[in-house]
């Protein structure tokens, strides 16, 4: 049977898709701004965050309204509660893109400390994870979501490389490099946090599709 409720769920779906696109764009722009030391691109990301904040509130209100009016059950309930969680994760991801952009502003006028190698790798991993996490939600694809969860260790590994290099090869040897090394260290940290949020989205998607909570238990992936 066709339900009017399905049209409302479809609108929610669209909004979350839009939120995902905006968050992905924010990460992409902030990472590109870092690579080419583009202050105006970084400022654009910072400015653009208010639209994402507004959309987050809109989506939350939509979810609360759907719960209040329809008292959804089963797969409808799992979709809406997951949508609410995915919404906050995406908003946090966009905030981290803002954090990266602020680091870009700190670094832009200073000479480059070193050529960036692992940070671009980490940014690729984080963008892939966010893209796949959003795709898994849109397509209700638990297999893809599980792949995202498993990618998180790669992000942790890259973050550790960056951290060890900046601390041991630069800051420990020459304290004057700290004002350029610390922002880079933070960028790596922000990117790694983005991966954590992508992982959270993916775990929520597994719940939405399979009604199984795998959070904090990666052994439940199989």
């Amino acid at each position, binding site marked *: 049977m066709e339900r009017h409720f399905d049209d409302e769920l479809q609108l929610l779906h669209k909004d979350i898709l839009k939120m995902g696109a905006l968050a992905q764009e924010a990460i992409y722009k902030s990472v590109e701004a870092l690579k080419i030391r583009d202050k105006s691109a970084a400022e654009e990301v910072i400015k653009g965050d208010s639209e994402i904040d507004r959309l987050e509130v809109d989506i939350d209100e939509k979810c609360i309204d759907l719960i209040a009016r329809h008292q959804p059950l*089963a797969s409808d*309930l799992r979709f809406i509660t997951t949508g609410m969680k995915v919404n906050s994760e995406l908003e946090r991801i966009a905030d981290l893109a803002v954090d990266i952009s602020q680091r870009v502003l700190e670094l832009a006028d200073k000479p480059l400390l070193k050529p960036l190698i692992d940070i671009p790798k980490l940014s690729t991993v984080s963008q892939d994870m966010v893209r796949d996490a959003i795709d898994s939600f849109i397509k209700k694809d638990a297999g893809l979501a599980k792949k995202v969860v498993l990618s998180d260790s790669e992000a942790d590994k890259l973050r550790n490389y960056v951290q060890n290099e900046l601390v041991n090869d630069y800051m420990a040897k020459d304290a004057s490099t700290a004002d350029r090394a610390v922002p880079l260290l933070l960028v790596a940290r922000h990117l790694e946090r983005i991966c954590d949020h992508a992982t959270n989205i993916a775990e929520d998607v597994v719940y939405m599709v399979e009604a199984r909570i795998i959070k904090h238990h990666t052994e439940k992936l199989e």
Partner: protein
Amino acid sequence: MDNQAKIKAENINFFYGKAQALKDINLGMHANEVTAIIGPSGCGKSTFIRILNLMYELIPNARLSGRIFLDGENILGSNIDPVDIRKRVGMVFQKPNPFPKSIFENISYGLEVNGIRDKNFIEEKVIESLKKAALWGEVKGRLRDSALRLSGGQQQRLCIARCLAVEPEVILFDEPCASLDPISTGKIEELILELKKYYTIVIVTHNMQQAARVSDKTAFFLLGELVEIGNTKEMFTAPKDKKTEAYITGRFG
């Protein structure tokens, strides 16, 4: 089979004339639990609970096979007194049906027909039943008033008190809140949650949220078959059967 069940249906088949209303139902209902039975109109859920207290016997051309165990004893056996079973397995109906008598007499009547003559005992039992049914506070000053002057929600609680007075073990509720407003419904639901501490409760309801709020187990009936029985929490978040999912999300039909 479920040997821990207080009351248990085994291979129940039921016919109204040639039409089969229940198909091979196996379902156990446990003490101190609320079992909700949900399903679209005509799925056999009311028929099923009417079999549990032998009320099907009153239906012309009805035919039944299978067994119903109450505390392990088959109550469909020929040596069973249905009146005795209906005392042990009480029923509360959709529409409150108090007798056109006083509040007091509505409850004392059941005791008197059971041969109890001790007036003090009867009075104590009336008060105790009204208290258990969460009605005492509202009627204590007017026990001799006609029951028909009570509100719908109060009448329904009076019917519950009447059922409790004869000390049942199982209470069957057939859509007990269908004709009540949300406040009265809330009171009945609170009462059901309180009563489950002492009784085995089975409730037929069309209200999905009501089943979700009050029951521990939920059984979904469709076209005379038991499609799925499970913990209520799982049935309403992640039902196993696609038909259950379609029904509770309103995609059915």
